[in-house]
């Protein structure tokens, strides 16, 4: 397939908060405005708009893509909504990548927006509707059940302890202190995590990312157009996405095969042969503390069962050998589902440009990766970026 190279040229992120005064439209508008301002563009310069946003049940608004379209700047333009559950935030730029790589459009505004707080008192209640209505919902499941069961299976398979996993929360919440959008940046200890209330053993409250409201936006451009707006484009060199069976209880939860398949698709496209050496910095999706480890293994950035050792040794810290979640991740910055994934892509964009401020990792990284995961624990979405 002949495809054009696609650059990221601008980005914006609102604050992530538990309940925002603004509507999802208003948050989208502001994230888009920030992205345009960051590279001196106007809405007129944008050829197409893609909107990533997660379940309509959070908002109680059906056809949420259409509802958010005005804030996203979608009117009078080719506009599409995309949605693959928690994987949406990294799928959105992949969706935009198709628009530009195909030659259809020279520029694409990628918007992600989530307002979870509308589902009151807690958006967790909306999640029951993702389970099978006949074989699962009568048991009154929560989403936490399947995370807790997956974490238990992962720990049991490799003999990983809760203490080791708690270090992920400690690292990411600390990293988030330096993120201007962060909801939960904080210095905490492993004991704080272990002593926080048990939600669903083995998951404690501080192992979990919060529900959040927020929006993020990013601008993609074709190679010739990119240089009109910036001297420092960052290239989307590889994109990958993959779906495993929706019968989630019939595959072994200890390993995310769909993440591996998505990653291999992106690595093949980017020409990456040894991801653990070539990917210098990564933002694996971390809605739960164990998930960062689980995903590092799926992404081939750590041997199976060994990701926790990289955290213990300090390798995943910002100044470590292989920084993971330098933004602070979903655990620290917050988790407005679709906006979280794009926040991660934007973090890699800023890090590769050397514009991450206090969060900047040393060593002048040239190649990074962002990943998200979702649907019924079955979809992996990955982008590989280079400067």
């Amino acid at each position: 397939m002949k495809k054009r190279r696609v650059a990221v040229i601008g980005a914006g992120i609102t604050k992530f908060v538990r309940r925002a005064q603004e509507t999802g439209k208003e948050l989208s508008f502001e994230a888009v405005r920030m992205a345009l301002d960051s590279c001196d563009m106007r809405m007129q310069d944008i050829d197409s708009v893609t909107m990533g946003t997660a379940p309509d049940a959070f908002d109680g608004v059906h056809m949420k893509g259409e509802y958010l379209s005005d804030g996203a700047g979608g009117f009078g333009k080719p506009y599409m909504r995309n949605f693959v559950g928690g994987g949406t935030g990294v799928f959105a730029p992949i969706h935009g990548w198709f628009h530009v790589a195909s030659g259809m459009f020279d520029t694409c505004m990628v918007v992600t927006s989530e307002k979870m707080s509308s589902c009151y008192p807690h958006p967790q209640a909306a999640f029951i509707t993702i389970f099978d209505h006949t074989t699962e919902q009568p048991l009154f499941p929560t989403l936490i059940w399947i995370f807790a069961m997956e974490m238990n299976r992962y720990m049991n398979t490799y003999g990983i302890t809760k203490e080791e996993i708690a270090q992920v929360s400690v690292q990411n919440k600390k990293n988030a202190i330096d993120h201007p959008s962060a909801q939960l940046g904080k210095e905490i200890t492993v004991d704080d995590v272990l002593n926080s209330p048990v939600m669903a053993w083995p998951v404690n409250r501080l192992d979990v990312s919060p529900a959040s409201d927020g929006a993020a936006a990013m601008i993609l451009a074709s190679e010739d157009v990119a240089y009109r707006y910036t001297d420092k484009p960052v290239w989307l060199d590889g994109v990958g996405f993959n779906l495993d069976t929706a019968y989630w209880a019939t595959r072994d939860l200890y390993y995310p095969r769909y993440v591996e398949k998505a990653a291999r698709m992106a690595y093949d496209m980017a020409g990456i042969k040894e991801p653990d050496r070539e990917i210098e910095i990564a933002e694996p999706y971390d809605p739960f503390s164990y998930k960062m480890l689980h995903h590092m293994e799926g992404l081939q950035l750590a041997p199976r069962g060994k990701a926790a050792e990289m955290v213990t040794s300090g390798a995943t810290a910002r100044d470590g050998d292989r920084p993971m979640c330098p933004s602070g991740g979903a655990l620290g910055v917050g988790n407005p589902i679709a906006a979280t994934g794009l926040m991660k892509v934007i973090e890699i964009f800023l890090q590769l440009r050397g514009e991450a401020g206090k969060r900047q990792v040393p060593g002048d990284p040239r190649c990074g990766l962002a990943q998200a995961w979702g649907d019924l624990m079955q979809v992996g979405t990955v982008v590989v970026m280079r400067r």
Partner: protein
Amino acid sequence: MELENYPLGGKALSDKDLENSLFVKHKPSLKYAWDNGVAISRYLAELKEGRIIAKKCRKCGRTLVPPRMFCELCWVPTDEWVYVEDTGVVNTFSLCYINWDASLVPKGKDPHIPAVIELDGASKGMGIMHLLGEVELDKIKIGMKVKAVWKAEKEREGSITDILYWKPLE
């Protein structure tokens, strides 16, 4: 990105702010009648009889529970119906202290114990999500053998809840 220049960029409201804010409350009351389809209707009818039925895919050789009319991995119609046991092995579990709507399980009450149970007679790894019961919390282990505890025959209604829970197999 200077957030202070963007006034619509996420102003946090506290619970107290919410009391003084203008908002609209809405409780949707949609009703659904979900058709259970061909495979799951048979599954439910068999549960009512106290049996668990599966379907075989001859192409991959898997015995599939819950049964399905097509194999989602081979993408072909499935073949014969077969019964599997109402015993199995705990693949994983959790002790859950919150309810489905994020409310807390009252102090002193037992947690929910969701588990993935790999059924005897189905293919290796072929599990269903269900609940454990009649078990001491600190005795639950991955790999533990369990058996279904069924509702009394005349109370069964053709639902996954015709199995009350799974208890350790002595």
